[in-house]
C-alpha cells in the first residue's frame, strides 16, 4: 500500500478495530481466562492485524478475521506455556466453534448486562468498577480504603453472582416474550 493509501487505511483500521476489539477481547479471554495474558495478546493481535491489514478482504467480517489472528496467537502462546488453561487445539477449536454458535446469545447477554448494571446500588457498582478499571486492583483499593481484602473479595463474589443471575433471568424473559 502507498503511504497515502496506508494513511487512509489507518483510519479505516482504527474504526474497524475499535468496533471489533471487544469481540476479540472476549474471544481471547475465553481462550486464556487470564486477564493479564488476554490484555497482552489483545495488543499483539492489534499490531499483527494492522501489519496484515493489506491482506484483509473487505468482503469479510473484520472481527472474524481478527479472531483468526487471535486464535493463532493463542495457539503459539499455549504451545510455550504448559500450565495455561487451553492446551489442545481441539479444545481451542471447540471453544471457537461454540463462540460462533452462541454469538447471538452473547450479544443478548451483553445487552442484558447493561440493564442489570443500572439496577446495582452505588456501593456494589463501585466495587465492580474497582475490579474492572484498568490500573486498579482490589488489593490497592482495600489498602487505601482501609477495608479487609477478604471482605472485598466476598463482596465481589456476591455482586458477580447477583449480576450474572440478573443477566440470566433477563435473557430468559427475553426468550419467553
Amino acid at each position, binding site marked *: 500500500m502507498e503511504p497515502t493509501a496506508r494513511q487512509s487505511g489507518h483510519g479505516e483500521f482504527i474504526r474497524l478495530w475499535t468496533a471489533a476489539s*471487544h469481540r476479540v*477481547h*472476549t474471544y481471547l*479471554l*475465553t481462550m486464556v*481466562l*487470564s*486477564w*493479564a495474558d488476554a490484555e497482552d495478546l489483545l495488543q499483539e493481535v492489534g499490531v499483527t492485524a494492522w501489519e496484515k491489514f493489506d491482506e484483509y478482504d473487505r468482503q469479510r467480517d473484520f472481527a472474524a478475521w481478527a479472531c483468526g489472528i487471535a486464535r493463532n496467537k493463542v495457539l503459539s502462546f499455549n504451545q*510455550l*506455556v*504448559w*500450565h*495455561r*488453561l*487451553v*492446551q489442545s487445539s481441539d*479444545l481451542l477449536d*471447540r*471453544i471457537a466453534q*461454540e*463462540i460462533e454458535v*452462541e454469538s447471538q*446469545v*452473547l450479544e443478548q*447477554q*451483553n445487552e442484558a*448486562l*447493561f440493564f442489570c*448494571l443500572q439496577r446495582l446500588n*452505588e*456501593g456494589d457498582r*463501585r*466495587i*465492580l*468498577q*474497582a*475490579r*474492572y*478499571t*484498568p*490500573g*486498579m486492583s*482490589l488489593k490497592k*483499593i482495600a489498602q*487505601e*480504603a*482501609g*477495608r479487609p481484602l477478604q471482605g*472485598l*473479595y*466476598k463482596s*465481589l*463474589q456476591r455482586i*458477580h*453472582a447477583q*449480576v*450474572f443471575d440478573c*443477566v440470566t433471568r433477563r435473557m430468559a424473559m427475553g426468550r419467553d416474550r
Partner: protein
Amino acid sequence: MKDRDALLNLLQLPREARETPIVFSTIRQLIARDDEALRLYIRWAAFEASLSRAFSGDPSERSQIVSAVRRQRNQAFGQWIGLMLTLLLISVTGFYLWSRGSFPKEAGVPIAAQLDTPEQILWGGKEPEQLGIVRPGTRLNALTGRFLLRLDSGAVAACTAPVDLEVVDGWELFVHRGDVCVQVPQQARGFRVNTEAVKVVDLGTLFGVRVDDEGRAEVHVLEGRVQSTTRFGSQDLTTGFAQKVDNSGRPEKIIPAVGEMFSTQLSSLAGIAPGTDSIRILPHPVSPVRIEDLNQEGTIHLLMERAQITLDTTLEIASSLPGTYDAQHLPKLTKIPKDALVSTCLIMGGKTSSAPLGGTITFDRPILGIALSSSQLDMTDRRYGHRLVQYLNPEGVKQSSLSRVFFTEGTAAATTANRFTIHPDGRTLTVHIDSASGEFPQLRVFIAARHEGP
C-alpha cells in the same frame, strides 16, 4: 449439573485465586468433558469481558472509587449496633450448627489442594468433592488405596491408606493417623506437618511422618532438613535421621531414617503403579552411595530419583512413542519443554556377565521420554538424578570402566540384544537386558508428574 455448579464456583473465585495451575487444570477438565459446562464457561468469560468494557472508564475515577468504598465502610459502621445483636444470634446458631458438625460450607472459599487418585479409594468418612478439589479444613480418611495431595503451596503429599488427615490449608497438614510422605519444592519451604505429638516444619525437600493408632509419631528425613518441635523443645533433623515422639509429646533418641518405611508413598510420588514386581524397586538412599553398590545381580532395578521436579531447560531425549526398540531400531528423539513438571527414575541391570534379565513396570502417568545414551545420562545425572547417589561418570568425567550405555550401535550381538518396549498405553515399559561383562546399561525415564485424571 454438578459440573456446572463446580465450574461456576471456580469462575467466581477472586482473580488471584482463579489464575493458578490447579484451578485452570480443573476448569479445563470440566469444559473438556461437558458441553453445558463449556457453554457456561464461554458465557462467563464474555460476561467478564463485557464488565471490563462497561467499566474501562477514566482511571482518574480512582480517588472517587476509593472514597466510595471507604464511605460504604462508614455506612456499615453506622449499622454496627444493630448488626451486633444479629451477630450474637448468628454466633449462637453457628456454634450450635458447628457443634453438630453441620455448619454449611461457604461457597467460593479458596482451594487448599487437589486430590490426585490414580486408583479407587475407599473413604472412611465423607468423600471429597468431585474433581478432587480439597478446601481448607477438609478431613480425609482413606481406608484403602493411595492418593497424592497437590497442595496450593506447591508441596506434594503422598498418602497411603489407612490414613486419616486434615488439610488445614495449602501450607499445613494435620495427620491423625497413618503414613504421609511430603515432597516440598523450594517455593514451599516452611510447609508444616503437625500431629498431636509433634510439629514438623520443612526446611528442605523430602520427609515422611508416621502416626500410629496410639498417637505416637515418627519423623524421617529422606532429603534435606526439617525442624521438629514437641512441647519439650525443637530439634533440627537432617538427611538420613529420624526422631520418634511418644504420644505425650516426649521425644525419644534420634535414629537413622528408614527409607523403606515410606517406599509405597515414594513409589506414589514417583508415579509407579501398584503391583509392579518384576523390577526391583530400590529403597530410597538416605546416605551417599555409589550407583554400582545399589545394583545386585539377578534382577533389573529401579531407583526412584526425583519426584515433581521442574525442568530448567528443554531436554532432547528418546521419545516415548509406543514400540520396541533395540540397537537397530532406535527411538526417535523428542523434546520435553522447559518448565515441564516431571518425575524421574533410573532403570538398570547387568554390571557383570549374567543371564538375560527382563522386567516390566507400569507408571500411573504417561512416560514423556527416556535418556539412554551416555551423553543423555551424564547430562541429566546432576539435575535429575538422586542427590545422594554418585553416578558412574560424575560431571561427564570418566571414572569407571563400566559402560552405562543401553544401545551400542554396530557392535557385538551381545550388546545389541538389549531392548525395551513402550506399550500402547504410553505408561508401561518392558526392559530386556542381555549385557556383556563390563556393561552396566541404564535408562533414565522421565514421566509426567501428574496423573491425567479419569
